[in-house]
């Protein structure tokens, strides 16, 4: 593990065609100062290297002899869950692209536009640098390749499956109802974005990015994972759901009385929908520990954030912010989620989305921090 403060990011590229590798090496030449780049020609070689050296990101081709990219990423995910996994391929057909997200964090199609690979790698490295090193959280955040949803969501999806076409209004209801499912939608859309700088401000943008085929995969109940009953109980998902109902009904409307900008309005709504996803991430990182923390914070004198910080090195707000950044949400939303427990400074009072989210959180929790 590279724990020193100013370390160079280590990135490995895997492609069976030498020319592709040297092309990548040359086009990323300028990044040599910041990135340590390794170029290898087969999956086995890559796995051997991963055993003895640390890498932050692997970028692999899909179609390769002996071991293809999917297989390689599957093994990397299992053995080195904290490594970020990219697929860069000329061979991905449209519906299949969504299946690759089971093992890849991001899929890029060859030929990708100038600078896209660089900017997406940089974005992911940036997220990675914010996650405290030392194993648990890195693996929890980057080992995640699908978000478990509420059992009721899955039941609804089973019903939708029998319909000939996807019933968009009822899927939209599910997003409102289940924060995990909304996050899953952003994750799938974010992982297949092909342009640099494309971010989502609302779930409608993610849906249109997924397109019909992507939506079909998203609502496929066979693919989806379900939260355990323990998880629902401990995280009090039902309460989160009730809050969402609250958010939907009154608070947003009240808060956004002064908001004229429809885009800002949309961002506030998205942030309000997703701001608690960090709890899910922390829970998945260590269920037992997180349950203990939740109990402590209810009875004890220390706040939840403090306990989380002590034990996980980050609060659920941080974790939520990172996971939303991974899923391609706009930096305004991710920042607002990351800071939704931080008291606004004097100058920040009217700075849109962050102020709104803080207010929403405060109102829902009755002023007191949970």
């Amino acid at each position, binding site marked *: 593990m590279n724990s020193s403060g100013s370390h160079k990011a280590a990135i490995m590229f895997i492609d069976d065609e030498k020319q592709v590798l*040297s092309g990548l090496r040359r086009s990323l030449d300028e990044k040599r100062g910041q990135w340590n780049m390794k170029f290898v020609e087969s999956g086995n070689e890559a796995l051997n290297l991963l055993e003895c050296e640390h890498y932050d990101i692997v970028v692999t081709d899909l*179609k390769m002899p002996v071991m293809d990219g999917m297989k390689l990423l599957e093994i990397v995910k299992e053995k080195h869950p904290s490594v970020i996994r990219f697929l860069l391929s000329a061979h991905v057909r449209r519906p299949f692209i969504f299946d690759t997200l089971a093992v890849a964090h991001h899929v890029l199609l060859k030929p990708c536009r100038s600078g896209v690979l660089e900017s997406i790698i940089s974005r992911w490295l940036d997220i990675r640098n914010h996650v405290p090193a030392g194993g648990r959280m890195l693996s929890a955040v980057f080992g995640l390749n699908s978000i478990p949803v509420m059992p009721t969501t899955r039941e609804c999806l089973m019903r939708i499956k029998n319909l000939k076409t996807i019933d968009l209004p009822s899927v939209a209801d599910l997003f409102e109802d289940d924060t995990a499912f909304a996050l899953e939608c952003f994750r799938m859309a974010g992982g297949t974005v092909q342009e640099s700088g494309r971010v989502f401000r609302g779930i409608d943008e993610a849906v249109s990015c997924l397109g019909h085929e992507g939506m079909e995969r998203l609502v496929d109940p066979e693919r989806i994972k379900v939260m355990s009953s323990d998880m629902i109980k401990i995280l009090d998902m039902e309460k989160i759901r009730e809050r969402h109902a609250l958010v939907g009904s009154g608070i947003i409307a009240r808060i956004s009385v002064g908001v004229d900008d429809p885009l800002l309005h949309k961002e506030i709504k998205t942030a309000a929908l997703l701001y608690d996803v960090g709890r899910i991430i922390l829970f998945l990182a260590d269920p037992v520990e997180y349950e203990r923390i939740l109990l402590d914070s209810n009875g004890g004198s220390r706040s939840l954030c403090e306990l989380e910080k002590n034990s996980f090195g980050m609060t659920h707000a941080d974790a939520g912010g990172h996971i939303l950044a991974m899923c391609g949400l706009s930096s305004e939303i991710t920042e607002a989620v990351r800071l939704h427990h931080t008291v606004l400074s004097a100058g920040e009072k009217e700075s849109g989305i962050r102020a709104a989210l803080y207010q929403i959180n405060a109102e829902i929790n009755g002023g007191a921090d949970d």
Partner: protein
Amino acid sequence: MPERRNKLFSLPRLGARHQFFLAILLISVMPILVLAYVVLVDRHFLILNSPTIWLMACSIGGLMVLGYGIIFKYPSNIAHLHKNLEEIVKGQMPDSHVVLMGIEDDIGAIEKAVNVIIDQLRERIDLVEKQKEILERELCQANKLKAIGAMASGIAHEINTPVQFVSDNARYISRATQNVFGFIRSLKRTLETCEESCRHVGDLTANLSELGGNEDMAAIEKEVSDALSESLEGLDRIASIVRAMRGFAYMGKQEKVTTDINKIIENAVTMSRHEWKHVAEIEYNLDPALPGVECIPGDIMQVLLNIIVNAAHAVRGVCEDGGGMGRIIAGSRTEKDQVAVTITDTGGGIPEKVRDQIFEPFFTTKKYGDGTGQGLVISRSIIINKHGGSMTFETEKGKGTTFIIRLPVRQEEKSA
């Protein structure tokens, strides 16, 4: 013909029931009349006068009418109906309507009903035939579209990779040349200042290394020249694919033109590169003196693509089982007034029990979704029905398969 014969036999145009009553009447009444006449008038049977003969004749006539019905007409009608119905059941439509004897009565109704059935069946058969024709055409078209779709995606794959590294290289070269020109500019400036101030070569080189150029320049020189040569290779790859793509221009045409079969073989191999490149090496064994063959080039291309893709799948099976890279050998040769194209693979061969089935529609060994089982059927129909050629295969388990297509060099007039 049968119509006419049956008409001849249906002598009295009376209904069966009328005939029957007439016969009963004649048979039962006439002997009584004869008896009464004999008893009352001609007691001695001596006078065989004309009324006696007339009455006798009448009763014989009655018997004959009845006999005709029972012995000849009904059995023959039933046999006729039976034969016709049996044919219909077997699926052979009679050439014409059924015509029975003495049709004015019940049997006539049966005749009419049977003929209505025949008419309706014939209509439906025509409809089914027409639909079958349309379906076959659509299937053929769908298969062609599928072949084009597969090729298009293959081409996209094949072009995307070189485009990726060619544009990466171009980006690098553009940046590198900027650096180089920057270096040249500063070099020029240094030289100018040196001319004025320093007279020693040592100063000049010191100034140069101060610019940090020397090492960079050597590295840039190597990288730029590599990038350029690799890019040119990549462009060559793209160009060869695009050249082969011209083959698409004739995919849709249905005219027979004199065609260089070797070129079609090469194009089909290039187009299917993504199917075989990881599993097999291609060898050519082409006859350079092959005569031009009159054929529909797009169709032949489709057939060859189909066979090459099958060959690649066969070789892949062996390759995945750890058998290493296989080979696909594309050959052509002249045989009298025919041209033979052979595609040989080193795959696992066609299992004995399915050898008879491979040309059957919907037969496939591929998993659901990978093959429709139509490729070889349509290929064979293209070769045999459209071109009057032949398509056969030789296969040996564990060694591989060779498909042989023979095409006549000149098409005969009749096979349009």
